[in-house]
């Protein structure tokens, strides 16, 4: 188990333990191996890409094991650099921990890693002089604030194509710092000196910095349990969920993103001394009335995204669209959950406008609109209309009747069924087939309240719900477990 604490809250004994352990690893030559592992990694394997977060999670985990070994403390955790309270005057920069800023020439002359006591290496492993720091001197004079961290914490999904610095919206890309308020990159640039090049682990603050990055990812994962690592597949090799990551040796844990997704399973615990980022109260999005004139809006800042909500009273086909001169990109979420993505579109509407047409069951939906180019601004209008004369029928399942054969034919698609219960009893709703289905049960007599859910309770990867049910009309929603998964399945309802 590793207990990771805010570096500024460490006791004198904990500070000494950290410094001694780092110095011991340096003397053993192990510390420099970590510098070289980072310095000689292919940049496309570990930066500007989805694996940025899992690669560095594994990297600091491996150093943590070494620190535990040399300290003899199995609970030793790398302290994290809490940026909002980690500026020049923070105690982590005192002489008993990291030492302070560099002198006029950038040379660190205070603390345990000062010139004469600590020598950095280049990517060939050769000594390359003293540790250098230039706090705030490289164009980014401030560290990320808590408000900026909270802003990034609200971003979903984890990542999107093209899986690089132009990915948007992307939690990974915002946390890494290529769009949005710039968190991770800014920390490197703010320290400057030895923290700027690929040999940045030469400065021990590197590990505290990435511990903070990892903590933010961990908290984001807890906040959005339905937002998994992406790409699951189809991305560049080394970036997919089950690909081995580049420049990652075999070790106590695996080298794939999937092997490091669960911090708790890795035995990592974060302290409670620092204020925990609270789930940000999200402002209620502007309401769009179905069938009303389109609502005027604009993207006034590059990378900005607008969110709207609309209510669907009954199942039926609907079209969500934008109009205007901008090249919009639209993502639909719901029902009743602004983190569950249903569909997205770029140019299905007029000119470069986005448009989604889809059967929607009753509930509240959310539309996120951004511009296709993360560097653009522009006006648009957004609207929702109900298509067709009346609601389309929801396929009905008959208790103890025949199964319905269906398919999840597109990413993020879900199917809805209804069935009637006339006598209170135990009923089983289950899918069959080779598709990894996920099922939610709603009712009675409403599509909105969810009363049960299941992933793999059936045979193989099929979903199954078995429960006592009172008379009424119920609704079943079936989707693929993976947001990107597709496949056929059958579904039935039986008594007992």
């Amino acid at each position, binding site marked *: 188990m590793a207990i990771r604490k805010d570096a500024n809250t460490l006791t004198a004994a904990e500070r000494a333990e950290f410094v001694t352990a780092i110095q011991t690893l340096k003397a053993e030559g192990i510390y420099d191996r970590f510098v070289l592992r980072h310095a000689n990694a292919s*940049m496309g394997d570990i930066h500007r890409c989805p694996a940025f977060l899992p690669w560095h999670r594994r990297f600091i985990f491996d150093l943590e094991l070494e620190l535990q070994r040399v300290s003899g403390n199995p609970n030793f955790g790398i302290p994290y650099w809490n940026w909002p309270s980690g500026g020049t005057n923070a105690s982590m920069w005192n002489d008993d921990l990291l030492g302070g800023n560099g002198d006029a020439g950038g040379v660190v002359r205070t603390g345990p890693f000062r010139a*004469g006591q600590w020598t*950095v*290496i280049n990517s060939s492993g050769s000594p*390359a*002089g003293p540790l*250098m720091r230039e706090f705030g001197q490289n164009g980014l004079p401030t560290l990320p604030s808590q408000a900026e961290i909270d802003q990034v914490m609200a971003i979903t999904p984890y990542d999107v194509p093209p899986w690089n*610095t132009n990915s948007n919206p992307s939690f990974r890309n915002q946390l890494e710092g290529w769009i949005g308020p710039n968190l991770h990159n800014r920390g490197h640039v703010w320290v*400057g000196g030895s923290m700027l090049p*690929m040999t940045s682990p030469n400065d021990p603050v590197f590990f505290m910095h990435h511990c903070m990055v990892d903590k933010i990812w961990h908290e984001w994962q807890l906040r959005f349990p339905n937002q998994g690592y992406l790409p699951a597949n189809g991305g560049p090799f080394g970036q997919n969920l089950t690909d081995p990551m580049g420049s990652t040796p075999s070790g106590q844990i695996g080298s794939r993103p999937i092997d490091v997704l669960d911090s708790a399973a890795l035995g990592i615990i974060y302290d409670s001394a620092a204020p925990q980022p609270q789930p940000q109260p999200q402002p209620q999005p502007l309401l769009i009335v179905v069938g009303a004139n389109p609502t005027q809006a604009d993207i006034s800042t590059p990378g900005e995204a607008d969110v709207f909500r609309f209510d669907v009273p009954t199942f039926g086909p609907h079209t969500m669209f934008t109009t205007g001169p901008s090249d919009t990109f639209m993502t639909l979420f719901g029902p009743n959950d602004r983190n569950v993505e249903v569909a997205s579109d770029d140019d299905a509407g007029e000119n470069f406008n986005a448009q989604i047409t889809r059967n929607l069951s009753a509930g509240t939906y959310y539309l996120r609109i951004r511009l296709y180019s993360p560097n653009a601004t522009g006006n648009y209008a957004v609207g929702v209309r109900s298509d067709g004369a009346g609601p389309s029928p929801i396929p009905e399942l008959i208790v103890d009747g025949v199964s319905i054969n269906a398919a999840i034919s597109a990413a993020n698609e879900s199917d809805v069924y209804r069935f009637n219960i006339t006598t209170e009893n135990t009923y089983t709703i289950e899918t069959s087939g080779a598709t990894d289905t996920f099922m939610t049960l709603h009712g009675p007599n409403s599509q909105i309240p969810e009363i049960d859910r299941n992933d793999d309770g059936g045979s193989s990867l099929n979903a199954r719900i078995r429960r006592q049910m009172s008379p009424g009309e119920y609704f079943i929603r079936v989707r693929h477990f993976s947001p990107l998964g597709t496949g056929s399945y059958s579904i039935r309802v039986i008594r007992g």
Partner: protein
Amino acid sequence: MAHHKEIFEGRTIEIKDGVNLSINGKEIDCHHDRVKNKFYSKYLPYTQYDSLLELAREIAKHAAEFSHAKD
């Protein structure tokens, strides 16, 4: 800037054909992001620059390979 050569803070920066960068004779891996119109290199993985020359000067200044700092 098809060809450019300069001494920057004691390091020799050379750009050939507008894209091939070397510092002190060492070839430097660098890339151009066409979407953002920015230049970047694994030598400075946390930043990107408006021009190749600007990137080259920053690499020369900060990369441990070209460090002149002394204890």
